């Protein structure tokens, strides 16, 4: 392979030799270092052989010495082709023109092939038309398509939403556009849904969007009661009715009451400091306490207040020494009675706090009632507020065979 390439590059000659001592010629040529190949004897006294073009001048003396005559039959290889072309400028020009034309033609797209894979929602002609509108047609420059490839693919995806995947590939002068259709999953049948009461209340307004109402305005309902059944009753032409299960929808406004109770004691015990006091003074060095001073005495329960005074930090960096002053005060419990007005204010504050935990934010309070009474040393307070709110809550309907969950148990408050 290498030798053939080298021969092509350097050029080779087919030489016809005539004479009697042809073997002698071969020996002399080999002795001079000339490589010979393809040696054939088509007839007695005649021989064809191949040599490199550059070796022919060295072969001439061999002809003379062996008494043979040689003649070049054919010249092959790059130097001879180049020489011929150089002598015939028109051919060279034609070759250059051909190469340039080939290069120019190869920089254009000449065919657009569209392949659609899917169930037939998208037709190849539609894609073809879309491509033409986007400027992809035979005769367009390859570079421009490659530059706008992403934009074209995005445009195609917008124009054909049924396509799950679109790809464009340029191979040579052909644009291959592959479109794969989207295969949608089968539609799910919606489960039947009932509307139940999220809270206990008095129904004041009911708007049924879908389904059959099972309560009327003015009805008192508890949490979990069925309000709108997820069934539609349709009259038939023959006079009968047909029941169809579906998803109930609607708004059920009800008056809902919230109640909080607070018990506030009127008499309370509180600790106060008595007149007796004891003061102790210590000096602490590491974990040792050195008592310095003590005054006063307390009998019974007391209250301790400790004061620490650290000495100058400059020479006491690790807090080795400090002065501790303990003050023990007498503690006395005294009975205090608050007024009903003060108890009411306290109960109101606590009631509002409890109510804020019950009410949803943004809920409008329509009515508010307060009740209180004093029984012995206790103040009983009751706060009731009324709101108007939508208590409809959709829950999955139990199955027709009776299985399924009971919504009253499911929701919590």
């Amino acid at each position, binding site marked *: 392979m290498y030798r053939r390439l080298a021969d092509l590059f350097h050029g080779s000659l087919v030489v016809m030799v005539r004479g009697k001592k042809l*073997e002698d010629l*071969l020996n002399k*040529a*080999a002795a001079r*270092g000339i*490589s*010979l*190949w*393809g*040696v054939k004897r088509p007839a007695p006294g005649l021989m064809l052989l191949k040599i490199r073009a550059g070796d022919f001048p060295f072969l001439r003396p061999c002809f003379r010495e062996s008494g043979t005559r040689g003649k070049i039959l054919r010249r092959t290889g790059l130097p001879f082709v180049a020489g011929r072309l150089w002598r015939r400028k028109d051919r060279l020009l034609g070759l250059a023109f051909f190469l340039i034309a080939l290069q120019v033609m190869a920089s254009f797209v000449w065919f657009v092939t569209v392949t659609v894979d899917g169930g037939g929602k998208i037709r190849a002609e539609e894609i073809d038309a879309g491509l033409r509108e986007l400027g992809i047609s035979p005769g367009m420059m390859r570079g421009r398509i490659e530059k706008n490839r992403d934009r074209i693919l995005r445009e195609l995806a917008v124009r054909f939403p049924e396509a799950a995947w679109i790809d464009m590939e340029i191979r040579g002068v052909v644009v291959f556009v592959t479109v794969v259709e989207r295969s949608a999953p089968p539609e799910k049948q919606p489960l039947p849904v009932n509307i139940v009461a999220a809270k206990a209340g008095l129904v004041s307004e009911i708007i049924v969007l879908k389904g059959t109402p099972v309560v009327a305005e003015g009805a008192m309902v508890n949490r979990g009661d069925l309000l709108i059944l997820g069934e539609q009753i349709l009259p038939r032409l023959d006079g009968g009715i047909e029941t169809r299960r579906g998803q109930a929808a609607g708004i059920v406004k009800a008056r809902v009451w919230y109640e909080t109770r607070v018990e506030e004691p009127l008499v309370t015990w509180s600790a106060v400091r008595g007149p007796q006091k004891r003061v102790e003074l210590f000096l602490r060095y590491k974990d040792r306490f050195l008592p310095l001073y003590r005054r006063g005495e307390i009998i019974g329960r007391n209250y301790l207040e400790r004061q620490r005074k650290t000495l100058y930090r400059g020479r006491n960096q690790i807090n080795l020494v400090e002065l501790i002053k303990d003050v023990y005060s007498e503690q006395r419990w005294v009975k205090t009675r608050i007024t009903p007005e003060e108890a009411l204010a306290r109960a109101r504050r606590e009631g509002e706090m409890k109510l804020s935990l019950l009410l949803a934010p943004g809920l409008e309070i329509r009515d508010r009632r307060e009740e209180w009474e004093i029984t012995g040393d206790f103040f009983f307070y009751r706060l009731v507020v009324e709101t108007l709110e939508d208590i409809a809550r959709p829950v999955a309907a139990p199955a027709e065979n009776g299985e399924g969950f009971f919504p009253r148990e499911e929701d919590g408050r």
Partner: protein
Amino acid sequence: MGNNGASRQKKRWQEKIFDLFGLPRKVLLDLPRLVMLGNCRLIVENHRGLLEYTETVIRIRTARTELKISGENLSLMYMIKEEIGLEGKFTCIEWSGGEE
């Protein structure tokens, strides 16, 4: 005759020395080396020239003997100073003349 006897003696001494040192004879004794692929291709190394070249017989001179190859459609693939490549259908290869 005397010259021939001297050269034989020289050759014997050479062989003895090569055997003594375990050297391959082909390296220094100019022995030809034949590489044959089936009966269709033959490479002869260390030749001394071509004596006859026809389509049925090719004779090659080697250092001490002559190699005669007979066959059909014989041709010379290539020939360089050290090596000759032959192809064709070989039927007989024989050594003649001289002694090895």
